[in-house]
């Protein structure tokens, strides 16, 4: 899973570019233009570094928060096979979070700092995880739609100019593709099942369709950081381009399932070869990313509780490590 298009909501921080010489900036851009990878120890503009920290940490937070809506059905998964698949997926997400926090750490920020910003509510994560998973079909819809949207976003990130991020994404993408296929297969099983199961699948599509489209972020005209991210090759395609690609791929998949996409104005434009769709309710998107979604408080409260409940455990681990180190030093 993934977040993208939230960068317009972040803050760039103080502009320190004045301290950076035109020669440095030109040389950096020349490396980007030549498709060279920027590595952790290389010189980079402060704004590039900050943009990456913001984007990678948001992505990591999304993986960690994303464990909750799926974890909600782990104890109730209907078969042993489904339980094992979902558990493996949730484990992958924790792993992605760990990778991504590590990638961000190469830019000089600690995991503690990043987690602190998540828990304080300062950092953002993908809006999609603030929607509830109400039925088992939601697990299928998340795999199919949310991971599907994530893949659209992430494949280009495998070519991102920042080396550690791009390499992390190569591995993450492999696992995401697997998740997406599992989600679709789950939906297919429901759609070939009883009337109740099919209704469950349709209901999940109805609830997740629009939030999935919102995952790509605001329209290009409203996405303030996009142009710079494109120039730096952190981003390769615009929000609207990726969203369109997702819709074009996903609508036929819904038809194959025998489900209706909840957009009465949706039609295929033969001239352009693309689907045309209704306007997205951006007010809902901005409400959710600013804290007013169905589950924002619940998701953060659960993370904070885990953090608070674990304080004595982390303290014990530190104390034990200190004792061991002291004993070794004395020996």
């Amino acid at each position, binding site marked *: 899973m993934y977040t993208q298009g939230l960068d317009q909501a972040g803050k760039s921080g103080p502009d320190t570019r004045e301290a950076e010489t035109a020669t440095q900036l030109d040389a950096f851009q020349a490396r980007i233009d030549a498709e060279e990878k920027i590595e952790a120890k290389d010189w980079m503009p402060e704004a590039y570094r900050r943009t990456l920290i913001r984007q990678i940490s948001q992505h990591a937070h999304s993986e960690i928060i994303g464990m*909750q809506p799926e974890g909600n059905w782990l104890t109730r998964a209907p078969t042993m096979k489904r339980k094992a698949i979902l*558990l493996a997926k949730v484990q992958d997400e*924790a792993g992605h979070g760990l990778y991504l926090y590590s990638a961000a750490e190469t830019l000089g920020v600690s995991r503690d700092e990043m987690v602190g910003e998540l828990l304080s509510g300062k950092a953002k994560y993908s809006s999609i995880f603030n929607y509830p998973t109400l039925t*088992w079909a939601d697990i299928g819809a998340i795999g199919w739609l949310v991971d599907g949207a994530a893949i659209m976003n992430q494949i280009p990130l495998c070519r991102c100019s920042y080396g550690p991020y791009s390499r992390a994404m190569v591995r993450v993408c492999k696992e995401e593709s697997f998740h997406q296929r599992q989600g679709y297969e789950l939906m297919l099983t429901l759609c070939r099942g009883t009337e109740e199961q099919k209704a469950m699948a349709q209901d999940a599509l109805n609830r997740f369709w629009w939030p999935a489209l919102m995952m790509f972020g605001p329209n290009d005209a409203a996405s303030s950081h996009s142009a710079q991210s494109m120039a730096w090759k952190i981003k390769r395609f615009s929000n609207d381009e990726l969203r369109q690609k997702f819709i074009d791929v996903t609508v036929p998949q819904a038809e194959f399932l025998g489900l209706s996409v909840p957009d009465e104005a949706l039609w295929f434009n033969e001239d352009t070869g693309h689907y045309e769709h209704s306007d997205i309710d951006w007010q809902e998107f901005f409400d959710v990313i600013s804290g007013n979604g169905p589950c924002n408080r619940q998701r953060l409260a659960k993370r904070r509780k885990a953090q608070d*409940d*674990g304080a004595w455990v982390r303290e014990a681990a530190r104390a034990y490590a200190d004792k061991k180190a002291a004993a070794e030093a004395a020996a």
Partner: protein
Amino acid sequence: MSSDETLVAYASRLGDNALILGQRMIELVAASPELEEELANANFSLDYIGQARMYYTYAGEREGAGRDEDDFAFLRPEHDYKNLLLVEQSNGHFGDSTVRQFLFESWYVLLLEALTRCSDEGISVIAARAIKEVRYHLRHSSQWLVRLGDGTEESHARVQVSLDDLWRFTGEMFAPDDLDDEMRAAFNGPHLEVIETQWRENVAAVLAEATLDMPDDQWMAIGGKQGQHSEHMGFLLAEMQHLQRAYPGATW
């Protein structure tokens, strides 16, 4: 009891321990004290779910009545689950779940070792696969027990209480019933008295390193192996079986 009946009952009992413990661990997803622990917990619970699948599938094959892993996992009444009381105990805090894992895994690893030598190939093959995972789990739970026991005053006090509270569920692990006797006689199954001696030695060594006191022998709670469970079990099953019960016969 025919030899097939013995194997079906024994394999499904092993499956019950693995499934119920795995299910408890799954409840801890997104609640771990560190991200690394999230990974470890998900990974280990997945191991237990995987083991349960192997045991149940084998039990179903031996039985020959068409029951598959899901019939065993989701469609039996509470009394048919024969897991130890220890594994169904609720998670409590990190110290409680760590002690539960440690006490169980210290026993389970010895049981699996013995089962790799039993004369039924179906069980011995599963045991040989499972033991690789469980050795690692035990290392993990032992290390945490030592960190908590020998960490801060608070962690030491907390985990000592966890140990004292859960100790009463350990007696059941070593009390042979008819099925254990049958398994031992017919298939060279585990000798629980021998396992108990080894278990005590191993547990004592870790507790000493953790600066924790081994609780005195006390009244022991039993019943899980006969299907008499604690109050926790009904809720665990109601949640786990929910979809299979709500939509009978559906394919998922």
